[in-house]
């Protein structure tokens, strides 16, 4: 009982036990956005892909951009949480759960955008029946499904101690079914030396696995583009470039999530400026790498003066001038300035910078997909000028908003099920502090 009074779980009890009126309003709002997205989806299924902006030339649009973006965020979550765990980074505990949740939620949403992009969902099983190992699309399907399993196992392993704590914390006023669920999911973990040893070993192995899988899987996603001869895609550095861009965008999403949960659940004591600066510095380093890769990629294309690459670069600096500037200049320089200069490193500044980075990285993916498809290699018979231009329709924007809303909703639900800060880790810290005192 004394343990219960001292447990950090007590502070997270309100988060788990009840939902405020604002919380319900937020969930209703998200459901509304998802509802609009569902209506857009029905419109697309009934009327066909004509309701989207995609045509014969630009066959990939916002859906694929969202897919790459969400998958990137997911892999970033895996890389960050895996790395922090593996190297036992001292400040990791308050934010590692968020990174893990970002991983799995984004990983569930991302592939849905591929399904939206497929014209004949009723023929989806053909992918399994007629799938060819030589196809990068098949690599991607295998890689993503493998990644989902790996991330789920890793998330479960890292949650096990907290599930056991929630099972045993009797003061918590939770419905019986939730208590039973915690009991089943906790697997009888009580923290014996044997159990701790096995759990630590399995978690370490899976942390290493999710890091390597995240790198491989996002490289596979990059290879879908780079193994084609399309101008702008056929690049040897696309694999590492995608990985860096993914971790960069994910670090920004993590900062935004930290800011939101800090405000909503009053976690000011757990998530401090130190954590924002730490993740901000990760973002800064990744911004520098991202800028380097971007410059290197475009420099070689520009200097090579290959005709189609030149046309693409002209298109980027003409029709897509502002997205290009925001994505590749502001998106790179802003973190360097805000996080790089010590006196600018406030929580607000870092969070605002993270928002700009997320938008810049989404635009970066848009610039990878759309302008290339607008400058095809071979002239296609009967291709009219209007078919070369892509502009997303309300259907695509609605489904994009629905994707973001589902991400937020799942994050909200997850935070109602388990504390967003691993309390078991904090118990250990509290014990250590007691010993020191």
């Amino acid at each position, binding site marked *: 009982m004394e343990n219960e009074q001292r447990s950090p779980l007590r502070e997270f009890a309100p988060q788990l036990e009840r939902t405020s009126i604002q919380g319900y309003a937020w969930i209703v709002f998200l459901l509304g956005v998802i509802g609009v997205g569902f209506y857009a989806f029905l419109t697309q299924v009934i009327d066909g892909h004509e309701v989207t902006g995609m045509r014969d030339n630009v066959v990939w649009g916002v859906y694929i951009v969202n897919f790459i973006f969400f998958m990137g965020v997911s892999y970033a979550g895996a890389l960050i949480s895996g790395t922090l765990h593996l190297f036992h980074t001292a400040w990791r505990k308050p934010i590692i759960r968020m990174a893990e949740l970002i991983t799995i939620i984004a990983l569930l949403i991302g592939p849905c955008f591929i399904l939206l992009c497929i014209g004949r969902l009723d023929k989806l099983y053909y992918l399994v029946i007629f799938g*060819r190992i*030589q196809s990068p699309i098949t690599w991607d399907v295998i890689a993503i499904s493998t990644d989902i399993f*790996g991330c789920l196992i890793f998330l479960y*392993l890292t949650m096990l101690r907290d599930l056991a704590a929630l099972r045993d914390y009797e003061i918590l006023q939770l419905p019986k079914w939730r208590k039973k669920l915690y009991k089943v999911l906790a697997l009888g973990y009580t923290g014996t030396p*044997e159990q701790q040893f096995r759990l630590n070993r*399995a978690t370490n192995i899976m942390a290493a696995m999710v890091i390597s899988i995240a790198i491989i899987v996002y490289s596979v996603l990059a290879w879908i583009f780079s193994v084609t001869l399309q101008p702008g895609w056929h690049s040897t550095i696309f694999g590492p470039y995608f990985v860096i861009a993914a971790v960069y965008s994910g670090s920004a999403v993590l900062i935004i999530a930290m800011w939101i949960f800090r405000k909503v659940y009053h976690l000011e004591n757990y998530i401090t400026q130190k954590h924002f600066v730490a993740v901000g510095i990760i973002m800064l380093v990744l911004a520098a790498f991202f800028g380097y890769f971007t410059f290197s990629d475009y420099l070689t294309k520009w200097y090579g003066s290959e005709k189609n690459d030149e046309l693409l670069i002209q298109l980027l600096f003409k029709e897509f001038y502002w997205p290009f500037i925001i994505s590749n200049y502001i998106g790179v320089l802003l973190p360097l300035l805000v996080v790089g200069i010590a006196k600018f490193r406030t929580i607000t500044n870092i969070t605002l910078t993270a928002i*700009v980075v997320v938008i810049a990285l989404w635009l970066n993916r848009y610039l990878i997909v759309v302008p290339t498809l607008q400058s095809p290699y071979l002239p296609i018979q009967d291709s009219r000028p209007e078919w070369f231009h892509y502009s997303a329709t309300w259907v695509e924007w609605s489904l994009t908003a629905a994707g973001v809303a589902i991400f937020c909703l799942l994050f909200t639900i997850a935070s109602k099920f388990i504390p967003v800060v691993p309390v078991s880790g904090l118990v250990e810290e509290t014990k250590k502090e007691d010993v020191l005192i």
Partner: protein
Amino acid sequence: MKRAIVLNIFLALFLTFAPKFITAQEKADTAAPVETKITFTYLCTSNDSVVLKANLFIKKDGEIYGLENASINFSVTGEKENINLGNAITNQEGNASLTCSIKGLPANKEGIISYAAAFKGNSKFPPVEASFVAKPARIKMTFNIEDSARHINISATQKNAKGEEVPVPNEKLMIYVPRLFSMLKIGEVDLDADGKANFEFAGKIVGDTLGNLRILVRLEESELFGYVQGQNEINWGVPKQYYKAEVPSRELWTPIAPLWMIITLIIMLAGVWAHYVYAVYELIMIKRHSKNNKPLY
């Protein structure tokens, strides 16, 4: 705090304008009237016919846009009368072409014919026309082999005022072999004073499966004759052989993946899933060690 406000303002501006950067792909029409333009060329072939080609387009924001479905009228302007050759409709690129016989077309004393192409215009695009003059000519070719060397004998003729065939002297001719996407230039020759030239065909060029090649000889951009073309077929090409791989290769329709790919995939997947299985095994062992333990709290 001030910095946060400045950043907030920047962010608000960014969020306001960013969607427009993506979607604003259709620019408002400028107030300046659009000038319609036309280019007009022709090709005289050896069977006494000409192919008249017109391209109708506009220039907007530095880009060229062809005008589609426009009716182009082709005519010949004579000293006494104008002959209407007919109309042709432009395609998506703004191209329209008309093939007609040169027999009976009015010409001046030198045998020069004046052609015209005109677009009537409509409410949005003003009328435009173009014309040029050219004298019909004819290019013929024969093939022979001497001492195992292959020769193309070329002759170019025109008609004089009396209607007699006379040579086209001292003009440069280009020799091509048509390929899938463009013309492969294999050489050029100069006509002598008798309007004759000889070209040694030395290349090994892939023809059809029987080795047939089509040879085109062209007089290009001549001030007097414009474009004149003669063509013939000869069995001097290398027969085309379709490659049939003995082992499965990387074609799109190849049913089996390369062995290295299958092995790599199996090793990687086996390595990854083995670790998953081990992690699940550890979870099972944790469950087994759960009995009779004290709770955490």
